[in-house]
């Protein structure tokens, strides 16, 4: 189910040349903000939860997920070079699974690690806030990568739709319509994080059992469907 060559090629497509720098800019910004906040406001658990929840988990993780998830397969389908990969004797679900692993790894490295570092800078892991948000980022990385990898195989405008989901659905509708929060990767991962953190700093609108079931279901279904999509892929030119 895992093909090292496909993985190596995907890593190069995602991180090669200057792309690692673009991916690295966001985590760097988070760390700069963390340092600035620590200097301005000192160590405070509520501020830490606000910065990690509002900026790291709500904005940074989905955007890194969009870049890594769609970037793992989108450009290849786009420029047509995916036919060389598909013509090799490798099962299509294997290709998807390998690319998913790579996308998850990249998202985790570029989102969860900086979240942990920022949390440690902000309040030295007081009340387990840093660890809780790191776990939320890890869990969210898996679901986002699977979801956006599927988008990459379905649509040519995967990045736009991914960003619309991340910014408009989760951020805008999530804050206005309570029901939208139930269908949000961010809230599901927060439900997991809620169990880890002490006190009431990390809260979610979704119960842990529901969140776990939905997380697993979305990840598995998205991966399966992406494999199916790749089996019947039609190549088309630029519109």
């Amino acid at each position, binding site marked *: 189910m895992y093909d090292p060559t496909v993985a190596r090629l995907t890593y190069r497509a995602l991180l090669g040349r200057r792309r690692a720098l673009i991916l690295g800019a966001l985590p760097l910004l988070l760390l700069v903000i963390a340092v600035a906040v620590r200097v301005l406001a000192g160590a405070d658990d509520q501020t830490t939860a606000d910065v990690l929840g509002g900026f790291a988990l709500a904005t940074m993780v989905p*955007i890194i997920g969009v870049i890594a998830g769609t970037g793992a397969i989108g450009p290849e389908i786009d420029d047509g070079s995916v036919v060389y990969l598909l013509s090799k004797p490798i099962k299509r679900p294997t290709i998807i699974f390998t690319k998913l692993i790579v996308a998850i790894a990249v998202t985790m490295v570029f989102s969860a690690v900086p979240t942990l570092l920022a949390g440690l800078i902000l309040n030295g892991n007081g009340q387990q806030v840093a660890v809780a948000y790191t776990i939320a980022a890890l869990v969210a990385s898996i679901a986002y990568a699977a979801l956006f990898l599927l988008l990459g195989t379905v649509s040519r405008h995967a990045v736009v739709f991914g*960003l619309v989901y991340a910014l408009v659905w989760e951020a805008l509708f999530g804050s206005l319509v309570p029901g939208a929060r139930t269908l949000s990767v961010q809230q599901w991962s927060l439900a997991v994080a809620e169990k880890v953190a002490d006190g009431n700093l990390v809260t979610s609108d979704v119960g842990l059992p529901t969140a776990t079931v939905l997380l697993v279901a979305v990840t598995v279904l998205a991966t399966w469907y992406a494999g199916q999509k790749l089996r019947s892929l039609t190549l088309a030119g630029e519109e």
Partner: protein
Amino acid sequence: MAVEQPTRTQDATPPGDQTRIHDIGYRSYDGPRLGRAYARRSLYSQSLRGAYGLGRSAKSKVLPMLLFVVMCLPAGIMVAVTVATKAGELPLGYTRYAIVMQAVISLYVASQAPQSVSRDLRFKTVPLYFSRPIETSDYVRAKFAALASALFLLTAAPLLVLYVGALLAELDFADQTKGFAQGVVSVALLSLLFAGLGLVIAAVTPRRGFGIAAVIAVLTISYGAVSTLQAIAYVQDSTSAIAWIGLFSPVTLIDGVQSAFLGASSAFPGGVGPSTAEGVVYLLVTLGLIAGAYGLLNRRYQKAGL
């Protein structure tokens, strides 16, 4: 190039006798030559149409049109509410509208700026443009003006809806006209700034998808970061820092300019807008960014794909 190829006959006469030029009747073009200005105008109008998907496939019309509708819809609802409740003023000021709807504007820039310039770079069609009688600056000016105009349409249309609605609701004419004029100036500045930033980013990241993400990162994430820092500065009572932090994100930049000069109420935490002196800095930074974006684009195309 009507030169007859030398034939294989080596045994007969020396080759010099066999080669001759035939006139096969090609005519040179003697119609009117429309020149540089016409080419630039065409590029502008095509880019502007392309920014709304006109003249492109049905699929590529969906997103810009959808964003346009989403942009205008709240304005229509507000007008309906104002008329129905007979309120004395609009629920949202003209200058505030673009700030509230900034996510939609950012998405529009992020989707259309790469569409406008990245594809030419990715498929290496830029040299074809420059084989026409246009210069680098013509291409940059046409693309810049087209995206700025498209953005101006997107941001000014809801203001027009609000204005017409306010007049129909018989609100004070002088008051509404003043607010509308201020709003239009503000969104014109916003269109130029966002178009410049979006095009520069799209021109350096021609790879599909990366350009979109990079534009969103610069426009939205910088706003998220800046407003987080401003909120913390507000809680810490260091209100003088709020205005200076606001310089680091395009949206807060426009917000600062319009609250200093265009009579807008600031969206900064606590409504602490910049003072007039700070407003001058805001305006200079905004104009500097627009000019800088134009300069960078010109430099980018000096050697693009040639």
